[in-house]
């Protein structure tokens, strides 16, 4: 009888396991295959890209596409702009979110409830694209990089999560600092923030990835193409297939039209891939914090 059970359990079980392992392997490969092709293709010649449909290793290895995009002034400028906006924007957004979350975590604060309701209402209802655009325009921020950082400076969901985190913060530490004569700002800056490094890191990653990937704000607020971020340039090169998007100094030079698309995708993906181990860890945590109410 027990042998029967074993047979009944393990043999179909093994077949299942085998198929399951194969299936998940295929799913993982399908997910990564486009990247493999794009990376391989970005090092291939134009003639090979035209001739071969799909490949994992290029026959002739060339850096032509990278050489071309890295001599393009438009490309270099967009990279510098995007890195700058991401760095400054992350700090700005962290500053706005954390400075508001901290006082809102203090239960004794008068008007706290009103302010929290103000935040919650903003989660439910927004003025929408056009009225927000008109506000940004009225502030004179069109074609300014501040338009990529300020309108999204605080994500209300993140704010509530951080506020809940501060509510569980050790009160004793703050009290003892107060006795030593520190102001709340001093306590916040010198005691609370250093002890909140993990949550600061998590939200720094949230915001940095958000700004790096942001397409809508630059689309709305940057009319001047010399100010474009990488995402807008990427669209012009790969989706609009504009061969002159990156410009060329030499009129006789024919840019690698296909290769440059692949190379720019590789470059735009690179920073995300570099910090991917951190992203995987922190984002999963953030997702689960967000789904569990504090």
């Amino acid at each position, binding site marked *: 009888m027990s042998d029967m059970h074993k047979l009944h359990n393990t043999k179909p079980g093994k077949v299942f396991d085998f198929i399951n392992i194969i299936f998940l392997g295929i799913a993982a490969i399908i997910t990564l295959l486009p990247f493999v*092709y794009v990376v391989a293709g970005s090092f291939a010649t134009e003639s090979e890209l035209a001739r071969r449909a799909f490949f994992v290793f290029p026959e002739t290895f060339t850096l032509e596409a990278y050489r071309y995009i890295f001599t393009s002034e438009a490309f270099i400028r967009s990279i510098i702009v995007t890195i700058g906006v991401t760095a400054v924007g992350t700090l700005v957004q962290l500053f706005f979110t954390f400075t508001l979350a901290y006082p809102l975590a203090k239960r004794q604060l008068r008007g706290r409830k009103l302010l929290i309701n103000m935040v919650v209402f903003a989660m439910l209802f927004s003025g929408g694209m056009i009225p927000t655009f008109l*506000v940004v325009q009225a502030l004179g921020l069109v074609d300014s990089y501040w338009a990529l950082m300020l309108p999204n400076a*605080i994500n209300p969901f993140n704010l509530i999560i951080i506020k809940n985190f501060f509510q569980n913060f050790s009160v004793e530490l703050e009290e003892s600092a107060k006795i030593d004569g520190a102001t709340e700002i001093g306590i916040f800056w010198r005691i609370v923030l250093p002890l909140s490094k993990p949550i600061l890191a998590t939200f720094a990653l949230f915001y940095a990835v958000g700004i790096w990937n942001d397409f809508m704000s630059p689309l709305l607020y940057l009319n001047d193409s010399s100010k474009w971020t990488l995402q807008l340039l990427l669209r012009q090169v790969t989706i609009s297939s504009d061969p002159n998007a990156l410009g060329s100094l030499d009129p006789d030079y024919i840019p690698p039209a296909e290769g440059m698309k692949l190379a720019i995708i590789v470059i735009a993906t690179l920073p995300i891939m570099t910090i991917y181990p951190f992203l995987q860890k922190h984002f999963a945590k953030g997702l689960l914090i967000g789904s569990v109410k504090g």
Partner: protein
Amino acid sequence: MKAITLRKPEKNADKKSLAEIVKIMWVRDKWLYCLLIPGVLYFLIFRYAPMYGVIIAFKNYVPFLGIQASPWVGLDHFTSFFSSPDFLRLLGNTLWLSFLGIAVAFPAPIFLAILLNEIRFSVYKKLVQTCIYVPHFLSWTIVIGLTHVLFSINGGAVVDLVETIFGVRINFLAEPQWFRPMIILQGIWKGTGWGTIIFLAALANVSPEQYEAAIVDGAGRFRRIWHITLPAIRPTVVIMLILTMGSVLNTGFDQIFLMTNSLNRSVADVFDTYVYNVGITRGSYSYSTAVGLFKSLVGIILILTTDFIAKKVDKESGLF
């Protein structure tokens, strides 16, 4: 709201005299109020000023007159939107995409999470997870850039492959009947792996003893999935489904906008992209604000309704 009102404010706080309250505010808490300033200004300027700006939906906004001086037109923009053929087309396109997404893309992470849960070799499981989470972090620009490279009619790898197998050359990016399948496909590729996390988290709470007991009782693999795994994730599935239903109008601007071209516009336009095209590109600020306002009001009703239902189903869930 539950998340916020953790503790009721002290009763005697209301009994203090005005002078005492002011004293508390300006002596005890003044630095806390200083910290509040940037965040509150942010909400007033970038969240509440646009809410005030919504009144241009009921006016004929003329930029050089400003919001105040522009003439009122009542519900004219709404009636002209509802009576235009655009309205039903946008609604149809939006609902098509949302319900295709719920039918096809929604079950995918559940299915994948169940399969991942069956892997006992944890290094392999981690490896697969690491691979399938990647697309979540990429922008839609990159996803659609990749789509254009792979599905381009001029030598796209997938187009060539389809031609070799089926003998037809399909222009996936231009033919309107391929627009919806492409959107769903991109959504599955980008979101399925990441979507498994919430279900895997629910499955992490199932004690291994349950599975062991089932094995002892002679339950096969499918019976164990049916009687242990599925019941364990059912509440999560129900909640996720309800919440997804609540956001059927949110089709995501970036993806649709970047996939739209002159050939597929008739099936591609959704509320958000329409607001952009009519408002920003053509400058009809008032009309497009009315369209946006209609969408967000219906959105709020849907969210509050589904949140209410979610709470009925499971007291712990729901958004507020």
